């Protein structure tokens, strides 16, 4: 009945795996093991999160009071550009890819990714792309045209330092890394599933990674093409975006947002997957409506390519175009809403355990819904015209990126940390971190909705002392510092838990999926054998079988 399947292992180790474990750093640098690479992705995300966070705090100091001169306008431009670029390309992407690379093989009962060496290539090219981006500060100044780098501000006449060239080259490299990782993940999921695991039995996290990878390889080429054109413009005097010579500034906006809007789904789909693992395990129930959660991801991925111009309502594309993109943007809210209801229904009637991971998941539901609703507000063209380029946009995007992606990633961190290190993350300090972070986050960004409606424009280095501006900005700055403090606490928790945390055991949460079958942390070879998979909850089946045989 309960047959186990031998998991094949290559006869000879790949170069890199053979390095003995006492070689320290060299072992990490030369590693092609998906678990080590996954951890390195997460470390890269953490390092850049601290840098990007520090940039955010600099901005909040500058905006703490009206007519402040803590930062010059030039420095402020570079810092908000680098903050956005860092957080999206060097924090959200590596964090999401890190979990994908670490847990995809484990959850489908495989021992390695399909192309281990390409996996290592992807990691390092992402990292060096990040370094190249930051090298701009040493080479005469960072990029200063915002993270979406609109033309003509990105042209040589308006930004004469080399910052934007480094932006283009750095993002090209990280973009190539992300595309190769996605191809790697798709092939892994298609070919390395354990026997019996059909595509409709994939753990939901893996399913989301699968859909996400297709989205990524379809969206990134558009950015790469735009960046290549930008480099040609800046280095070889081409005229793609140079309106004075017949080019089109609008072309950049189209190409960027054809990538840029799918990108926001690229960094939210895997966190959706994490939640779809966390909610069932801590509610002690299988997920409500597996098929709906899975299918709505596909719907999101397809619709994601039909909504890009809602970033461009203020451009003046005409009423027909605006109406189309307004409708499609409202439409894409539906599959996301379906998921939210599925997660709530999963909790309904379950035995809920309020671990830190579950608390982040529940907070996600609330915060992400706020971000989603302000997004729906933006899909209504007149509201968008009124609020575009104000702090309302800043509030909206942080509610979806932090309230969505980061909360999902943190839920995943507290959920999977025991598997990755063999140690529990301290739950008591974790709860402190949770409350500090949530209060700091809402303190920073909730008031920015109001600031935006009062008409405060984003991306301006200071503001006059208009009624309400000073106090709301001060609240926002204090919230930001609370959030910064809580992130330092998180770093301390992680450090302390690795050093002398409680031993986790193989399966601390009584999980449903295969990654909890192996030891914590998993050995170099993840599995020797795996039970034949017959359902969506293979480990649960196995536990029930053991229970029955004991009786």
């Amino acid at each position, binding site marked *: 009945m309960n047959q186990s399947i031998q998991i094949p292992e290559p006869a000879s180790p790949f170069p890199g795996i053979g390095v003995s474990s006492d070689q320290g750093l060299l072992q990490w640098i030369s590693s092609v093991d998906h678990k080590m690479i996954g951890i390195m992705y997460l470390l890269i995300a953490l390092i850049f999160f601290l840098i990007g966070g520090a940039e955010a705090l600099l901005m909040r100091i500058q905006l703490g009071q009206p007519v402040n001169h803590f930062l010059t306008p030039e420095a402020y431009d570079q810092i908000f550009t680098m903050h956005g670029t860092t957080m999206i390309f060097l924090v959200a992407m590596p964090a999401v890819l890190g979990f994908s690379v670490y847990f995809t093989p484990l959850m489908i009962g495989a021992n390695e990714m399909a192309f281990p060496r390409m996996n290592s290539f992807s990691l390092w090219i992402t990292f060096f792309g990040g370094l190249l981006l930051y090298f701009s500060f040493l080479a005469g100044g960072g990029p200063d045209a915002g993270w979406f780098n609109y033309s003509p501000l990105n042209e040589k006449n308006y930004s004469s330092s080399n910052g934007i060239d480094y932006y283009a080259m750095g993002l090209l490299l990280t973009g190539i890394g992300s*595309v190769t990782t996605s191809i790697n993940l798709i092939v892994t999921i298609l070919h390395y599933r354990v026997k019996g695991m059909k595509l409709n039995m994939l753990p939901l996290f893996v399913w989301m990674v699968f859909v996400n990878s297709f989205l990524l390889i*379809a969206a990134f080429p558009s950015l790469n093409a735009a960046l*290549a054109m930008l480099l040609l413009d800046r280095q070889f005097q081409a*005229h*793609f975006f140079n309106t004075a*010579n017949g*080019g089109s500034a609008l*072309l950049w906006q189209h*190409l960027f947002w054809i990538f840029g809007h799918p990108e926001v789904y690229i960094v939210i789909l895997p966190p959706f997957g994490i939640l779809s693992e966390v909610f069932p395990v801590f509610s002690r129930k299988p997920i409500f409506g597996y098929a709906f959660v899975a299918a709505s991801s596909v719907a999101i991925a397809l619709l994601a390519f039909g909504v890009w111009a809602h970033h461009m309502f203020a451009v003046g594309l005409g009423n027909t175009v605006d109406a189309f993109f307004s409708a499609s943007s409202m439409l894409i809210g539906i599959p996301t809403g379906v998921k939210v209801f599925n997660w709530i229904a999963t909790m309904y009637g379950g035995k809920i355990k309020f671990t830190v991971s579950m608390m982040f998941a529940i907070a996600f539901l609330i915060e992400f819904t706020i971000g989603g609703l302000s997004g729906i507000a933006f899909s209504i063209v007149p509201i968008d015209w009124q609020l575009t380029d104000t702090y309302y946009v800043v509030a909206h995007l942080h509610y979806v990126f932090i309230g969505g992606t980061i909360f999902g990633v943190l839920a995943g961190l507290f959920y999977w940390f025991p598997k990755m290190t063999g140690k529990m993350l301290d739950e008591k300090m974790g709860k402190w971190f949770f409350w500090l972070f949530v209060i700091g986050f809402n303190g920073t960004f909730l008031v920015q909705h109001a600031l935006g409606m009062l008409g405060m424009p984003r991306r301006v280095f200071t503001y006059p002392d208009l009624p309400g501006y000073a106090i709301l900005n001060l609240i926002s700055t204090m919230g930001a510092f609370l959030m910064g403090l809580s992130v330092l606490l998180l770093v301390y928790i992680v450090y302390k838990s690795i050093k002398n945390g409680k031993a986790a055991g193989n399966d601390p949460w009584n999980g449903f999926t295969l990654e909890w079958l192996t030891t914590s942390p998993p050995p170099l070879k993840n599995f020797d054998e795996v039970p034949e998979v017959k359902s969506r909850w293979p480990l649960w089946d196995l536990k029930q079988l053991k229970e029955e045989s004991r009786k």
Partner: protein
Amino acid sequence: MMKLVVGTEAMFFICLILAFIYMAYNTGFEPHDMKALDIKTTGIFTVILISSSFTFWIADKNYQKGKIKNLKIWLIITILLGATFLIGQGEEYWRLMNDKITLSSSVFGTSFYALTGFHGFHVFAGLVLLSIILVLTFFDDFNNTNSNVISTAGIYWHFVDVVWIAVFTVVYVLPQFTKY
């Protein structure tokens, strides 16, 4: 895997082609630049590139039948045809540069050189790939017929040709039917 690579590359070229079309309808576009293109010469080189797809197909068929000698011959022919196409492209660039059409001369130059240049670069990468395979056949690496390296390389090579058909249609053929 190669199909996924080709998929993502296809999106890249779609963006470049759309940029070209977008530029063609933009105000700065100079119709007389378009007239400098010589559809007949490039047409001949297009036929050469497409025929290299057929010669590769024959090479692959021979490999599957175990005829390694024929495989080598048809691979060499494929590489020569691909290289001829690149020489033709170089000759065309040379002629256009002499007509003062460069990357920075006009919007047409910008989008034309970017689009055809990226395609030429992909042809070059394909030639490197095929040359490596050719060298390996002389080291007897393909004496067994169970490798999928050649058919995988084929996916890429055929893709490069298909892209050129699209580029040729948009850049050379369609403007013939457009009044300026």
